[in-house]
């Protein structure tokens, strides 16, 4: 019985291998397969010709370079970034504009109520007009993220920006986060994405975007009174609290650091919340910068995970964050999450241990942790190749890259990502988006991906310019076409079966350009391209 089960499992494992291994060739990955694997995981997939380039230069050399993005020129992205107004805004001005929009909306609502106009749809729409600008801002923010993911030469850096943005999730649709999120991405996440975890953690804890999102701006020591009457009543467009709010404290422990099994108690959560009382922000019309409100801070003695915090002040929070960043539970929790992103949904212990050891050795240097993952045997194990299903963002970005496409200036391509299930910055739950196959693969989502692939190849996908001439020449030679699609679009990952099916579909298509669009659409919508 046991032997039967085991042989069945071995058979299953063999059948599940990516094509080159399943065909009974040598189990040692070729330079091409290794290059494709690295490009799939450290980057948003290869552009036409990338696999050959990386294989020729040496995959470890390419990985080293990706770990040092400051040495990679990225002029194309720099040129494109100039068209994003969002990067020119002064955060304080943006905050003041938001305060003005809130004021106008309140005014308009009052007028509508006074005029007796209670028509629900109309009054809603009318009163929403001042906020229109900020909704557009959210769209531009999404578009910028997708443009960078498609076009940046610093691919690993962009992948890590996405990873940390998701790990330290905020929701751009919540009140002040409409204008705080751009600053959060540009000044909190991006500068630390390949830095030290501790610095990133402290930066997020001091970001108005996070403090507002998880209600810490509302959290004050019971009985505390603001020093000036003009501060009473308003903070970030919402009323000040009269007691502690546990939201940030809980997610800090559960999601950002220790993990849900990290060994903390409800008392720890309450004490963490007490430590962070006073961590808030200035009023929007005063710039909405991070501010520590001494008057709101609980000066009593607290105990978290057995450590006493006394004396009060902002320093308590900093000490706590540093302790959390070095806690073995945090190291394991975040290392495992990184391995789930880069190696497998359920990562082997080996790479998690290697990452955690590098973390401990380097005091949380994210580059050192990543290097440990990329050099661990688990990362290069044949079972890791093509083992992960792409998220909607990864699918759309990798498809555009594979088709040699370039996003236009509109948020329409980001809206495609949203329609496939992953609207950027709009995940309301602090967990961020899931990384696991079971979360993303279902029949409806697959059909939507097939539709997007066909539209992309036909040049009909909104928000992207595609020029297939630069990818595969349109030719009447069907075999040459399919070879070209395999090498240039799928990075050589096409199975024999897929090749046969695509070849059959092309048989009676006369127009070479139509045949090419069909072949590319089937390849991008087919099963191989859903994996990485």
């Amino acid at each position, binding site marked *: 019985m046991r032997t039967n089960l085991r042989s069945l*499992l071995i058979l299953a494992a063999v*059948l599940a291998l990516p094509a080159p291994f399943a065909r009974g060739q040598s189990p040692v990955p070729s330079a091409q397969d290794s290059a494709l694997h690295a490009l799939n995981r450290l980057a948003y997939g290869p552009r036409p010709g990338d696999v050959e380039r990386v294989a020729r230069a040496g995959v470890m050399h390419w990985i080293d370079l990706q770990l040092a993005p400051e040495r990679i020129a990225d002029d194309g992205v720099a040129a494109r970034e100039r068209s994003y107004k969002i990067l020119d805004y002064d955060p304080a001005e943006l905050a003041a504009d938001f305060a003005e929009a809130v004021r106008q909306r309140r005014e308009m609502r009052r007028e509508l109520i006074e005029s007796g106009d209670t028509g629900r749809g109309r009054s809603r729409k009318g009163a929403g007009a001042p906020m229109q600008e900020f909704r557009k801002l959210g769209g531009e923010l999404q578009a910028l993220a997708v443009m960078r993911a498609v076009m940046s030469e610093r691919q690993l850096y962009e992948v890590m920006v996405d990873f940390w943005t998701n790990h330290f999730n905020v929701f751009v649709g919540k009140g002040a986060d409409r204008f705080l999120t751009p600053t959060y991405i540009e000044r909190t996440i991006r500068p630390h994405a390949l830095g030290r975890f501790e610095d990133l953690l402290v930066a997020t804890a001091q970001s108005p975007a996070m403090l507002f999102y998880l209600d810490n701006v509302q959290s004050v020591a*019971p009985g505390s009174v603001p020093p000036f009457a003009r501060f009473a009543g308003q903070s970030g467009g919402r009323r000040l609290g009269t007691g502690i709010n546990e939201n940030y404290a809980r997610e800090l422990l*559960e999601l950002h650091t220790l993990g849900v099994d990290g060994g903390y108690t409800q008392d720890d959560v309450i004490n963490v919340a007490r430590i962070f009382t006073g961590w808030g922000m200035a009023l929007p019309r005063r710039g909405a910068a991070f501010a520590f409100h001494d008057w709101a801070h609980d000066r009593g003695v607290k105990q978290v995970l057995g450590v006493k915090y006394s004396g009060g002040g902002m320093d308590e929070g900093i000490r706590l964050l540093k302790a959390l960043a070095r806690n073995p539970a945090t190291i394991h929790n975040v290392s495992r999450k990184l391995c789930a992103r880069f190696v497998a949904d359920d990562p082997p212990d080996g790479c998690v241990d290697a990452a955690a050891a590098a973390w401990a050795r380097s005091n949380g240097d994210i580059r050192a942790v990543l290097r440990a993952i990329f050099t661990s045997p688990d990362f290069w194990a044949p079972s890791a190749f093509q083992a992960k299903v792409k998220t909607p963002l990864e699918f759309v970005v990798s498809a555009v890259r594979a088709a040699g496409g370039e996003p236009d200036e509109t948020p329409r391509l980001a809206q495609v990502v949203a329609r496939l299930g992953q609207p950027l910055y709009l995940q309301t739950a602090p967990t961020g988006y899931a990384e696991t196959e*079971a979360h*993303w693969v279902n029949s*409806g989502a697959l*059909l939507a991906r097939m539709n997007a692939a*066909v539209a992309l190849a036909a040049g009909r996908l909104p928000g992207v310019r595609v020029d297939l001439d630069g990818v595969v020449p349109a030719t009447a030679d069907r075999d040459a076409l399919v070879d070209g699609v395999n090498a240039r679009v799928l990075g050589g990952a096409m199975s024999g079966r897929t090749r046969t099916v695509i070849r059959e579909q092309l048989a009676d298509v006369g127009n070479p350009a139509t045949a090419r669009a069909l072949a590319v659409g089937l390849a991008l*919508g087919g099963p191989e391209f859903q994996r990485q």
Partner: protein
Amino acid sequence: MTISRRVFVTSGGLALFSLGFDPLFLSRAAYAAGRSALGPSDRPVLVCLFQRGAVDGLNMIVPHGDALYYDERPRIAIPRADVVDLDGHFGLHPSLATLKPLWDNGSLAAIHAVGSPDATRSHFDAQDYMESGTPGVKSTSDGWLNRYCRHDQEHADTPFRAVAFGPQLPRILAGTAPALAIDDLQAFGLKMPREAARDRLTRAFEALYEGSATGLLASSSQEGFEALQALKRADPTQYTSANGAEYPPGRLGRSMLQIAQLIKSDLGLQIAFADVGGWDTHVNQGSSEGQLAARLRELAGSLAAFSRDLGERMRHVVVLTMSEFGRTIRENGNSGTDHGHATAMLVLGGPVNGGKVLGRWPGLDPAQRFEGRDVAVTTDFRTLFSEILSRHLGAPDLGSVFPGFTPDPTRFVGAIRV
């Protein structure tokens, strides 16, 4: 040349079997190939609505007869004058007033003080437990509705047996039994201007996935193609809402309309799932009006429209609302409520033993509270779910649906008429 469907189904099933997949999939596939996908119109249907974010059960089903309720919530309690009284002690939030006729005709009941035996106040964990059906156990990989589907094969003859409305399949339906996620019935399928081109493209992708997909990609794509064929035949969107039912605008209303369309098109729907967010009312949750009131109005409007639309067919339908936990009895410093413990759930439909607030009410007395602050759980959510599965759907084997839990019929709250 294209592969015939029969070959696709058979070889797809075999490939999955050799990959160690549940052999039930094979039998189901073979069954589907040999039979019409139409199910009987009197098949019992369960519609689950997940209120994500932890609904404040105390302001939904209001214990207006309890003075402590008003003491603890000076700013957000529902004034007695606004409560739609049900039994002298409990009443509906005024936004739920549209549901009162359903209460009066005996097709709507509420269960109070229901929740998880696990103490977590994390949305993430508590939702996970409510969907996996194994509170306290994180390693469970599938959801309880999926396990039910796997162990009750009687209705497994259609790809529409279990459908979730939304872009992703929720945890509650994740697992090896086939289940569909549909974001929009109208847009479900491959988009091509001409039908011939659409059919051809569909066949091409079907052949691609049949040949090269593994694991979840293989089973999900096969479910998708089967569903496309059945949908094309039945065309559920031909059913507009009946009896003057008007669904509220928004995602929930649209989901409920489409669930009704699927039921009417007799595609064999047995389990439907939809979710609705916005219940995490930490700040300014409001009282008779405000944030929570607006969410409840949308919920009530959707339920009332659904019930009216289905009319006579509600005889075989049960709608169950659920939420991961309740909220603190005492309002917080921000005129809101924080994460609590027990909450209230609603059951609606012909088989429901309605017009009652069910479950044992522990009261709001501090001595009776969970951890001194929250409504205590007197009904384990698995007990309620078990009752509905066994008495409404006729589930034969609940042990495998809720592993590690033995439902005790003497503890059933009596949500379903027997």
